[in-house]
């Protein structure tokens, strides 16, 4: 029993790390743009597909495919960010919802149109199990947790000390003042979005060896899971997102382990609705910022 408990906890932490890397990009984008990016999970999907594609067609190694996938996602994000996201500064919320839904439809179905709708097998990564605290764990899973920790340390340092990070915080507090003091709001929005989307792509590639299957609709599920996390973490709150992602990951893994696998994907949305009802401002702040 204790063994199973520990195993589910470890699984939950790994899942939570995956979610955290995706969700932090969404929450940062929301912070500067006030737009819930319904297409965010699609960058996760693009990352996975890019990696799968170069491994299958060009016989590249997994590490190279990670670099390629993140670069491609970043490039895509620059295009989408430049032409769409940047222009949504100060627009009514409906525009953000509809435009990102549109992007999501285009990316998701483009993947299906190009590569077919069937499930694909992802062949790569480090799936050798290693012993850790008496539990067998694939190396890839440990890698995911390490990358997650590094990403969050990096983001925290960036947001606190770098000029870019300071502008991001400024934009998330008051867009008009930023414009007055000469911060280029549109470019801050663009680069925040690019960082966020690339992280989603990175998370996609890191998860692919664990999830094994690659398919066009995979991004939608990730978007759905990101929503409760960013609400729990408090919109725009980077550290809160990490904790919220861990909570959801562990909760999902316990539900899957002790209640039934088929209920795992419902946990997120039940959480989302409960959070929206009772604590729409998140678990860690006292009042709503937005």
């Amino acid at each position, binding site marked *: 029993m204790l063994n199973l408990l520990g195993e589910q906890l470890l699984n939950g932490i790994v899942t939570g790390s995956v979610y955290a890397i995706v969700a932090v990009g969404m929450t940062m984008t929301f912070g500067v743009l006030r737009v819930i990016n319904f297409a965010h999970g699609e960058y996760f999907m693009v990352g996975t597909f890019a990696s799968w594609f170069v491994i299958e067609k060009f016989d590249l190694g997994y590490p190279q495919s990670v670099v390629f996938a993140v670069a491609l996602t970043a490039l895509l994000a620059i295009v989408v960010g430049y032409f769409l996201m940047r222009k949504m500064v100060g627009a009514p919320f409906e525009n953000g919802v509809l435009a990102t*839904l*549109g*992007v999501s439809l285009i990316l998701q*179905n*483009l993947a299906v*149109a190009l590569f077919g709708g069937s499930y694909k097998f992802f062949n790569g990564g480090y799936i050798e199990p290693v012993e850790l605290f008496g539990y067998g764990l694939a190396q890839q899973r440990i890698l995911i947790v390490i990358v997650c920790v590094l990403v969050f340390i990096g983001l925290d340092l960036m947001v606190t000390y770098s000029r870019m990070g300071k502008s991001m915080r400024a934009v998330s507090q008051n867009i008009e003042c930023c414009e007055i003091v000469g911060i280029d709001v549109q470019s801050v929005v663009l680069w925040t979005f690019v960082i966020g989307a690339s992280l989603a792509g990175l998370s996609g590639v890191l998860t692919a060896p664990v999830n094994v299957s690659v398919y066009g609709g995979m991004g939608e599920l990730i978007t*759905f899971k990101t929503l409760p996390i960013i609400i729990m973490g408090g919109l725009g709150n980077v550290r809160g997102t990490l904790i919220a992602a861990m909570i959801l990951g562990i909760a999902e893994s316990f539900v899957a382990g002790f209640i039934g696998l*088929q209920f795992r994907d419902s946990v997120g949305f039940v959480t989302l*609705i409960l959070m*929206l009802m009772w604590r729409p401002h998140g678990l860690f702040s006292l009042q709503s910022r937005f």
Partner: protein
Amino acid sequence: MSQLQETQQTWRSGLRLPAIILMAGLVLFAPAFVGSYSLHAVVIAMIFLLPALGLNLLVGYTGLLSLAQGAFFGVGAYASALLSIHFNTPFYVNVVSAGLISGALALPLGIPALRLRATSFVMCTLGFIVIGQAISKNWISLTRGDMGLSSVPKPYFALGPWSFSVVSTAAYYYLALAVAGLAILAFYLIVRSPAGRNMIAIRENETLAEAVGIPTWTYKLIVFVLSAIFAGVGGSLYVHYLTVVSPLTFQMYYTTTILIIVLGGGVGTISGVVFGSILFVALSEFLRVAPEIRMIAYGICLLLIVFKFPKGFAPVIDKVWSALGGQRA
């Protein structure tokens, strides 16, 4: 008000009356000269018109952007399928019950959801679809899970000893036409009623509406329930036409299609929604566009709507209409 006078003035002159007669004739006698596949495309469009009218009421008259239409559409489909499979009820009972069940479900869901603002409301309504999908997949004793319910009876009518079934596409066309016509009439009556004017007031300025004594929250809840009823009726019509229903009904596909009909056609108008369902459903069904290509097109349309045509594509139709009336738009 001025718009109303303008309409009345131009009504008398021009080519509008012939255009109406021509269109009515086309609609009434379509099965006589249109192939059965095109007829099928139009039937699907008329079915999607119902949830779209519901969403139009919600977006166009109270300003609430909801993604839950697909969920209520699915609820209506399942309710109607289960009723006719287990109790072999006639069509009118199914349609009415499907609408009422969806509406009854919308009430407890709407009470908490409508406390939310803007994006939170959108996310919450998205949640309803996901929960609908989870329930339809996992309540296997009722819904048969992923297998779905198949061989749902074709609609039949019974009045005393006399009964008949709607089997052919042409017959279903008239059935769908009748239901869609009634729905448009209901929509028109709702919008033109004093309640409809209050709804518009809420859309235009909620704070002001509240200040002049309109119970805005109650109105939103009523409209949310009404939109679910429209969607439920649509779902019932859909399931009896296709005779199958599965958890796939709770895919984003349906909600997206409904959304694009309303926004692409033109929010807050009847003609816009009719136009939207013909353009986005009938045309793509008729051209046999692959689903993924269709969704890509929908995505591009959404971006166009946001960045280029904030009023949807209906103003184009209005221009034609004005031209028929002998005016310059």
